[in-house]
């Protein structure tokens, strides 16, 4: 028994007011859905209903697209770029002002630890608006000709793992480049997007520039298939990404897709071992492992395997799983029952295929959806847990003998979103980084994000980049 058990340190929820029911945000106003339907959203940490969310149907989507089109042609595309930028600056500032409110709401709706929503999601979301605000009047320098043009109305569909941050990744560049937006948050995590609608009102953003329609996959399909949409931006599973690619075939719609991954995290024998262990933990257990770029395939040089695993287990024993509102929580709740079931299925498969499971000793709360941080050793490339995205706090550990073998194994996947490499030898870092077929390489670090840094995948991890100049160009057409 540790005498220094940290007492509960709960973030207060008094700062957020959650309505009983949320409507759609179309043309600057909250409107009841034509569908007349609402669905519940729950707190995954206790399974209690937080609110009812409007379920938009095709008519609702049509209204939102119409509002976005009108705002595009009448207001947003005609506004001087510098003025457009100022709205984004305003939004960035309001997000900073209301940061704690957003963080608490995010944690309630998503289940992620308050430390992460407070220190990562919301500050980064604000930073994305601030960064892109400055681009608005400098688009002629973005490398797509001297008079780049927006697409028009962009349909944006975002996932549940970083609800507010993904909204910022999508909305900020779209608005900075002069597009208007119809955005659909994930059905389990709509609340911060709806709070963002309030921010748009406070910023006096012209009506219709941002429209938020809530709903499930069907609503997303309505957006993708709407003829008034000029461009799709989607973050989510590779499976849905392929459906979108199929849906827009033969149309003039373009798409950016940020999809799944099965990132290798390569630990060479000459790594800074202790920081590598931190990187492993951060790589797979950040945000409950609900991260498309998570370092879910650990590749350890065989001659240091035992040492690394021993240190990893010691470190994992310190991971604090529990109430996401507790400021000392490291691992919060799994976002939904469905996701938990998926994690369990793959973990069962891992055991059945002969890999050895070890889970950190932590107490699992009685209600809510939880999964203890888990590693599988003795995994080989043929195992399902080495190939399929688990999207949970589950790490598959493999070994390699030479740098060549590490790279071969790392690249041996249809995905190509991210990868990690740990070595204190500079030339080996560059050698490895240049051979890894992935869009983001974290060398001696992992899971770092920044609005100035392009993010996006090779191969089946997606199309295009988000962030930086490269991400900006995804929302611009060349002037010819």
């Amino acid at each position, binding site marked *: 028994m540790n005498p220094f058990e940290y007492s509960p340190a709960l973030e207060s929820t008094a700062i957020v007011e959650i309505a009983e029911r949320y409507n759609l945000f179309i043309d600057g106003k909250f409107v009841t859905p034509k569908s007349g339907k609402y669905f519940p959203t729950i707190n995954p940490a206790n399974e209690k209903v937080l609110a009812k969310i409007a379920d938009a149907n095709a008519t609702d989507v049509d209204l939102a697209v119409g509002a976005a089109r009108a705002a595009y042609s009448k207001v947003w595309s005609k506004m001087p770029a510098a003025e457009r930028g100022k709205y984004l600056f305003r939004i960035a500032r309001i997000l900073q002002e209301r940061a704690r409110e957003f963080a608490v709401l995010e944690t309630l709706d998503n289940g992620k630890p308050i430390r992460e929503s407070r220190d990562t999601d919301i500050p980064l979301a604000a*930073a994305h608006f601030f960064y892109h605000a400055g681009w608005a009047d400098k688009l002629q320098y973005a*490398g797509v000709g001297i008079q780049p043009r927006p697409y028009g109305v962009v349909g944006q569909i975002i996932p549940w793992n970083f609800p507010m941050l993904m909204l910022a990744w999508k909305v900020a560049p779209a608005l900075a480049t002069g597009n208007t937006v119809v955005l659909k948050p994930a059905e389990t995590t709509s609340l911060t997007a709806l709070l963002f609608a309030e921010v748009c009102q406070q910023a006096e953003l012209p009506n219709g520039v941002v429209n938020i329609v809530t709903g499930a996959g069907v609503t997303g399909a309505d957006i993708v298939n709407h003829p008034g949409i000029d461009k799709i931006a989607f973050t989510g599973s*590779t499976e849905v*990404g*392929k*459906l979108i*690619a*199929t849906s*827009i*075939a*033969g149309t003039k719609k373009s798409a950016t*897709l940020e*999809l799944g991954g099965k990132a290798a995290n390569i630990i060479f024998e000459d790594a800074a071992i202790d920081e590598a262990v931190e990187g492993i933990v951060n790589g797979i257990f950040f945000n409950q492992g609900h991260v498309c770029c998570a370092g879910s395939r650990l590749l350890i040089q065989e001659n240091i395997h035992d040492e690394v695993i021993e240190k990893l287990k010691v470190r994992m024993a310190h991971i604090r799983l529990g109430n996401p509102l507790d400021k000392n929580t490291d691992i919060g709740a799994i976002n939904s029952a469905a996701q938990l079931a998926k994690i369990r299925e793959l973990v069962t498969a891992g055991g059945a295929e002969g890999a050895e499971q070890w889970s950190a000793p932590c107490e699992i709360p009685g209600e809510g959806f939880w999964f203890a941080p888990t590693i599988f050793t003795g995994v080989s490339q043929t195992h399902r847990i080495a190939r399929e995205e688990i999207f949970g706090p589950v790490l598959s550990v493999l070994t390699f003998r030479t740098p060549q073998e590490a790279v071969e194994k790392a690249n041996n996947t*249809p995905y190509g979103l991210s990868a990690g490499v740990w070595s204190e030898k500079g030339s080996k*870092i560059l050698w490895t*980084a240049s051979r890894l077929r*992935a*869009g*983001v*390489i*974290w*060398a*001696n*670090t992992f899971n*770092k994000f*920044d609005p*100035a*840094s*392009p*993010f*996006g995948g*090779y*191969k*089946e991890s*997606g*199309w295009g*980049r988000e962030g*930086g*100049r*490269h991400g900006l160009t995804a929302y611009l057409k*060349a002037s010819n």
Partner: protein
Amino acid sequence: MIAVPANRIDVLKTYKLFIGGAFPRSESGRVYSIKDSKGNHLANPSLASRKDLRDAVVAARGAFAGWSAATAYNRGQILYRMAELLEGRSAQLVAELMALEGSTKKLATDQVKESVDLLVWYAGWSDKISTIAGSTNPVSGPYYNFSTPEPIGVVAIFADAKPSLLNFVGAVAGVCVSGNTAVVIAAEPFPLPAITFAEIMATSDLPAGVINVLTGSSSELAPWTASHMDIDAIDASGLTPKQLKEAQIAGAANLKRIRVHTDAKTPERILNYMETKTVWHPIGI
């Protein structure tokens, strides 16, 4: 004293495929007839099959590691070498284009000259495209962060029709200068300059398999190309809108990047077949 019989019979060229640096016939044994602009038979190029496509992709994939790892300077020199050889073969290509496309000697000559110049233009991009499209990114934290474009892998090219040499050269040079390898399906009615150009490639220090040329039916090969899981991208400029749509649907299976170009001379032809890689590294002591 050289004496040529007045009734000498010309030795005609057999137009074959170009796969992995060799000139095989189609494994199917099929050919199709190409007519000149007046409708007279010109040649019987191979009618490539899906298995020829498969072999070409294997050759292209095999060549990718080496070609993409070659220095940009080296790739630029090889493309420039191809331009030199193309200049030297001008007369042959002018004659071919006149017969095939029915163009005047002036137009055909101009097309060849422009093709030479286009190759030189792309050759020069090899060691500049990363400078233009790459960046260091000022992230908020103690990290060095840089983005650089990298070749995407194996690209299938459906070359656009007339001007057939120029389109072929522009597409191939844009795709390959960055380190990609290619399988080109020559424009169905105008395949001869592509095969003649393959003879240039075969003698220009271009590693075997970097560029592979198939002749035959686009409508037959497009579905196999679009669904081939080891092709990373398609330049679909030569496909019809209907073929394009079908290719986009089939290509979604591995999220192929499928592009269509109108300009022969644009850095987009290079960048559309590159992926941006971003690398983070801490800055510390």
